[in-house]
């Protein structure tokens, strides 16, 4: 499956559009990570635990989107966009959406 965030696929031709596909996940951090983040909050800098968490969740959302596209019979998703929103304290929603297409 080809993913791009441009409207076209460089080097390929889009022959069919299938419409919107999307995937989301809501993730909460766990206590261990929160504790470390609390400590890290004193000295600042990168919160590696959170970076990992966001990366994993984003991959999960991407996977769901790709599954949806596959079901439609698409072999590529173009114009992929990400959005993050914090819903409640300690939980973040990752949302990915794009247009499923068939490319040759």
């Amino acid at each position, binding site marked *: 499956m*080809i*993913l*791009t*965030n*441009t*409207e*076209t*696929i*460089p*080097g*390929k*031709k889009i022959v069919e559009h299938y419409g919107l596909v999307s995937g989301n996940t809501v993730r909460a*951090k766990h206590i261990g990570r*929160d504790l470390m*983040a*609390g400590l*890290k*909050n*004193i*000295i*600042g*800098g*990168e*919160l590696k635990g*959170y*970076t990992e968490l*966001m*990366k994993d969740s*984003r991959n999960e959302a991407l996977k769901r989107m790709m599954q949806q596209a596959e079901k439609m019979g698409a072999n590529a998703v173009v114009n*992929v*966009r*990400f*959005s*993050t*929103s*914090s819903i409640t*304290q*300690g939980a*973040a929603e990752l949302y990915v959406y794009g247009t499923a297409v068939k490319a040759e």
Partner: protein
Amino acid sequence: MGDLIELAVFVMLILVGFTAGSTAEALHFKSLKKREEETSGLPVLTVRGGGAEDIRADRVFLVIGECVVAQDYFKRVLASLKTIFGGRLGSYETLVDRGRREAILRLKERAKRVGCDLILNMRIETSSIGINYKNNSLAGCVEVVAYGTAVILKK
């Protein structure tokens, strides 16, 4: 007595935050500069790739770089004082700057590792994933994600 201990903890947190925070920040900026020079050969474009069909691409894929950075205790206290008077919050400017540059660097490094020739339509998204630490002192914590379309050209 209890108040005194509380005050002592507060002063200690500020001191630790100030010393460790500033050294960590200086080191981070130094490493950012070095790595930016190393990856300067890879062009990153923010153009949307109109007419991209003409690019003789062999393979295309999505690359993502992300980073979550937090502010140190000293600067957070300083910033909360500053919000009374308003004006420029320089300490938060450097925080988002650190996050953005790190995220873009990770994106470039990942693309470079797989032998990519250019990145099209690079986009940056910044969001605060506010974590409340202990009581309600809101932590200055931002998540930055940079993403784009990596292209490997036909040789």
